[in-house]
């Protein structure tokens, strides 16, 4: 073999970091072991140790190698047979080098998965073909989306135990797609495989001749991650000020995003002082241009004072500068989040202190339902408002993983207790608030106080229209027929000379919602806009009808507040997700549209929204 050529190739490969997530026993460790084995990354001595270990504590049959034992590093784990932490593995093929973050599927270890996902470009989610999409699969998908991973491979494993059935594969694929679609992950691949037998792991399997996609390894080798980096917004957190002698003063750091050249006009945050880049210094010589991911030292034209923890950006493209922001928070400590306590916060190269002011809600990671709460416990995920002692310079996590992430550190134990992903800056409150509800109520009060009433009163409008304005929300699962019902309702009311209006999701996705993409956090914003819109449409005297996927109590409460002083009716179709809220009409299964319409119209009549003669 030509070693020089081999080495040159290896040096210049690109790097893919990926995360594997699966549940107990779905063959994750076996899969990784198989990848390492088939790509010839297991050394001979490790293999012989492995053979010995397999006999001693393996769970596979006699004589078979238990690949899982190769990966379970720590003693306690080996005894329990469960990987309890994040382990990193390395392998390379002629095309790419890989770093695997191997994380456990066990119930209480959300935090480990988040840890592994934080540095990953791609996630492999394992599904056991015998069980299909289970609760844990959904949790994995949710965390992966929350941590901003853009590429997912859904590895449907143990196909050998399902006779390599295409129907089984397709059913699981459809099931999973329905769950993951709203989470807004742009690139998803589905692969049928058997880690144990090696089908479609490295080599294409003859047993799945109906499958025309790539193998797992080939997908890993070819996924395009170049476009994931942000090269448009220059952000340079200063880690270290390098002053070896009087004639040199450099600001050392790693470019978080964007591109920089000598001569570019920059600004330092928070001072706002401006200068231009004189040199991009590295030990290998000065650069003509540097970009995201490179560790450099910037020398500036002017002597301006910048300390470590501050940030250099380009003039005209600055991040949010604020002491207060909205974020998703993953709690990682046995000791729950305490709103009265102060924590250290590390964000980019800066360390300061912060408090969590408000927990808007926590998310049940299994059902994605939102709940009001006053604390977050180990492995719980919540949406919060954080305020820091000093200004932070940040972008939203979706746009910039580097400047949108932070950790919280306990000031007494010094443990890392939370991982945060910033959504947006929020206006600092003049008065301290204790709850999300208080914030919202204050908003409603201000809004209503400032509402610009025209000359035509609501009463005049109702007299002329012969009915009152009202919002009708139809909620249910994705394919429950709720949209059709909403549209039919509009039509029925219209034919009775009532001013009805149906708003479908397609009518706002590229308009009112054009600036927000799909994703868990963005749903909150979508609902906020819908709430405000319903307030306006009802005020206009319309019967405003819209349908929303799977509302929960928390979201409904929000919509209700936003719609104040107006009220709305809620119709549920199929199995709804409310805990305590009682819909005005609950339709178990939408078999007969006419019947459903009659019920709704009767309700509108009974509540005097529309005249009785319309019923």
């Amino acid at each position: 073999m030509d070693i020089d050529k081999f080495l040159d190739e290896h040096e210049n490969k690109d790097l893919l970091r990926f995360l594997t997530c699966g549940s107990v026993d779905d063959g994750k460790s076996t899969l990784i072991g198989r990848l390492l084995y088939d790509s010839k990354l297991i050394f001979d001595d490790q293999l012989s140790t492995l053979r010995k270990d397999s006999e001693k504590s393996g769970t596979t049959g006699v004589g078979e190698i238990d690949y899982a034992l190769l990966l379970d590093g720590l003693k306690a784990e080996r005894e329990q047979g469960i990987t309890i932490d994040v382990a990193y593995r390395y392998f390379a093929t002629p095309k790419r080098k890989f770093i695997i973050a191997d994380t456990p599927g066990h119930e209480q270890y959300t935090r480990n998965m988040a840890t592994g996902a934080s540095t990953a470009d791609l996630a492999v989610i394992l599904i056991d073909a015998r069980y299909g999409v289970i609760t844990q699969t959904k949790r994995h998908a949710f965390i992966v989306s929350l941590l901003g991973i853009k590429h997912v491979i859904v590895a449907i494993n143990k196909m050998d135990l399902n006779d390599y059935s295409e129907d089984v594969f397709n059913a699981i694929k459809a099931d999973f797609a329905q769950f993951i679609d709203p989470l807004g992950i742009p690139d998803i691949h589905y692969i049928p495989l058997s880690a144990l037998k090696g089908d479609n792991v490295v080599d294409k399997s003859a047993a799945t001749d109906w499958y025309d996609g790539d193998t797992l390894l080939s997908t890993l080798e070819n996924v395009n991650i170049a476009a994931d980096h942000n090269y448009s917004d220059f952000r340079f957190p200063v880690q270290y000020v390098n002053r070896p002698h009087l004639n040199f003063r450099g600001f050392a750091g790693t470019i978080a995003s964007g591109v920089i050249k000598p001569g570019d006009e920059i600004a330092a945050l928070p001072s706002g002082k401006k200068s231009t880049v004189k040199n991009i210094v590295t030990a290998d010589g000065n650069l003509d241009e540097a970009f995201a991911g490179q560790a450099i030292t910037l020398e500036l034209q002017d002597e301006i004072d910048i300390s470590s923890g501050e940030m250099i950006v380009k003039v005209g493209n600055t991040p949010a500068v604020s002491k207060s922001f909205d974020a998703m928070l993953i709690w990682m400590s046995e000791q729950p989040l305490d709103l009265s306590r102060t924590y250290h916060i590390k964000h980019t190269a800066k360390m300061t202190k912060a408090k969590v002011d408000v927990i808007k809600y926590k998310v049940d990671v299994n059902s994605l339902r939102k709940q009001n709460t006053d604390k977050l416990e180990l492995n719980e995920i919540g949406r919060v408002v954080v305020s820091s002692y000093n200004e932070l310079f940040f972008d939203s996590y979706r746009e910039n993983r580097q400047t949108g992430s932070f950790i919280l550190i306990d000031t007494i134990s010094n443990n890392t207790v939370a991982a945060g992903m910033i959504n947006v800056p929020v206006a600092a409150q003049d008065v301290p608030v204790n709850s999300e509800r208080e914030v919202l109520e204050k908003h409603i009060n201000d809004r209503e106080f400032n509402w610009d009433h025209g000359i035509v009163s609501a009463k005049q409008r109702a007299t002329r229209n012969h009915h009152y304005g009202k919002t009708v929300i139809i909620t249910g699962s994705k394919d429950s027929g709720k949209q059709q019902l909403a549209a039919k309702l509009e039509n029925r009311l219209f034919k009775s000379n009532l001013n009805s209006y149906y708003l479908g999701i397609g009518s706002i996705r590229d308009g009112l919602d054009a600036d927000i993409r799909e994703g868990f956090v963005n749903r909150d914003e979508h609902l906020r806009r819908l709430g405000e819109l319903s307030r306006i449409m009802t005020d206009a005297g319309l019967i405003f009808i819209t349908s929303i996927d799977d509302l929960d109590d928390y979201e409904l409460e929000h919509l209700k507040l936003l719609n104040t002083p107006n009220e709305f009716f809620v119709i549920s179709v199929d199995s709804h997700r409310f805990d305590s809220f009682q819909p005005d009409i609950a339709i178990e299964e939408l078999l007969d549209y006419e019947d459903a319409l009659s019920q709704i119209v009767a309700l509108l009549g009974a509540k005097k929204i529309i005249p009785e003669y319309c019923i």
Partner: protein
Amino acid sequence: MSDYKISQLKQLEAESIEIFRDAVSQFDNPVMLYSIGKDSSVLVRLAQKAFFPGKLPFKLLHINSTWKFKEMIEFRDKFCAEQGLDLTVGHNVEGKAAGVNPFDYGSRKYTDIMKTQALLQSLDEGGYDVAFGGARRDEEKSRAKERIYSFRDRNHQWDPKNQRPELWNLYNGRINPGESVRVFPISNWTELDVWQYIRLEKIPLVPLYFAKKRPVVKRDGTWIMVDDERMRLEPGETPVEKMVRFRTLGCYPLTGAIESSAATVEDIVAEMMQTRLSERSTRLIDSDGDSSMEQKKREGYF
């Protein structure tokens, strides 16, 4: 946009540089643990790059067990002088006075006294709050789960059940007085990456890494070099001259050589691709018992 591409090796380099700069800004009294081996040499080069054009803002600490290969010590002194590095050498004074050696005390006890205890004494003396080390996650199973910032309590102990979660590039360097952190900037490098980098950067190495005729005896299936007159030969053992080299360097009576003719980095890589023995298999202390490395780490060894 895709012309903004960094090779995997340059990505690893950038990550290591970022870690060095982060730790130096978070801690007050850093030190680098310098073992003279190839990983340490790479670590030094990365640190030089991180603080270029300045000098390293910390000392190098070498723990001399007093049983290192002669060539290692020669190389160390020459390398540090040439590179302008500030070197401190520590060893266990009591252990040395008591004549602790690997023959009478066994590898486990000897390693504990002359390496682990010596290291802990030196760290306490220096009052260092952070120590850089060249450990890599691909070396051994228990290291695969090691953090880049590895927290140590007042007794320098590592608790694998109580590690801080480590997310993104946000390293937590907060400690209370007396506690410390070991920082491993090349955690994500593999053995091949290290060789690759040595080749690319033309990093000088101890000649022991390259094959040469050396006096060795066969012991427990590996070749042990007779580096000086202190080597105790078992009955029937006669040193023979063999073309050998070392994949890792440590105390000569405990470090196995492999038969090889690889005289250059390229040869070594070629051999590596063929022999497929993991690096640590030539270290006798790793196979003291199941999970022995993990045990040593808990006690404060790297």
